[in-house]
């Protein structure tokens, strides 16, 4: 499995398509699914495990942790939980790609 991360609208999904992944093989917007999981009162660690064991070939997520600390507590929790879930996912993936300006850089694998 590979992980593709980067800021919003950087070309992450396009990169996944270029690599030959089909939409149904991709778990897209991982960061938003983490948000939903927190809102539903779930465990982000368990959710992350279910994604890792979900048979996907690629996980795509926005990087959301590089701004000023949000004023809203829920936003702060979401941001940090997403970061930790991404660390765990990156550790489990064979390759990690960071996308900036449409250009993918392999940072693991």
């Amino acid at each position, binding site marked *: 499995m590979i992980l593709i991360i980067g800021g919003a609208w950087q070309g992450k999904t396009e990169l996944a398509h270029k690599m030959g992944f089909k939409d149904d093989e991709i778990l897209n917007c991982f960061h938003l699914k983490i948000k939903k999981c927190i809102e539903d009162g779930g465990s982000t660690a368990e959710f992350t495990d279910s994604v890792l064991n979900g048979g996907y070939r690629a996980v795509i997520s926005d990087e959301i942790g*590089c701004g*000023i600390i949000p004023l809203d507590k829920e936003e702060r929790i979401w941001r*940090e939980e997403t*970061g*930790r879930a991404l*660390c765990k996912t990156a550790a489990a993936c064979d390759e990690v790609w960071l996308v900036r300006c449409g250009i993918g850089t392999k940072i693991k694998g």
Partner: protein
Amino acid sequence: MLITVMGGSGSGKSQYAEDLAVSLFHRLSADRLIYIAAMKPYGSEACLRIERHRRQRAGKGFETLECFCRLKELAVPQNGVMLLECVSNLAANEMFDEKNKNTAEDITEGIVRLAENSAAVIAVTNSIFSDGADCGSTTREYIKALARINNELAVFSDRVTEVVCGIPLDIKNVCKIGI
């Protein structure tokens, strides 16, 4: 030696910096391994965070030294490897609690002085520069000050590493000992 480790929230920068400090402590045959804690234990979120960090570094052999401001005045222990966590807390404490008008200069000087007088310093700092939101003049001043500190530290650093999803990416590396 000075190493700057930066990263966003939950990027894994602390854990990476801790492990690097432990490895340098052995490599450099340093006498002390010190964690300089800059976060004030005020409020439940800060306390939880401090507790999480304590648990994370438990068993790694760190002594903890608290320094919430005036880093320049900190007595520097002999031949130590020091992990400063984190520069962004130190900057907020100086700027907002101490009303220090020279926050960026004072912190940079404090860290460089620390590095010159010890075996190695690892300064953990935050990437907070990429959300594009206009957050008002006070916060903007803070962001600017932290950016100045980070940029200055990078000049003096032997290595600057950005941690992304737990993966260290070197932006600069002129370390002579191959780390």
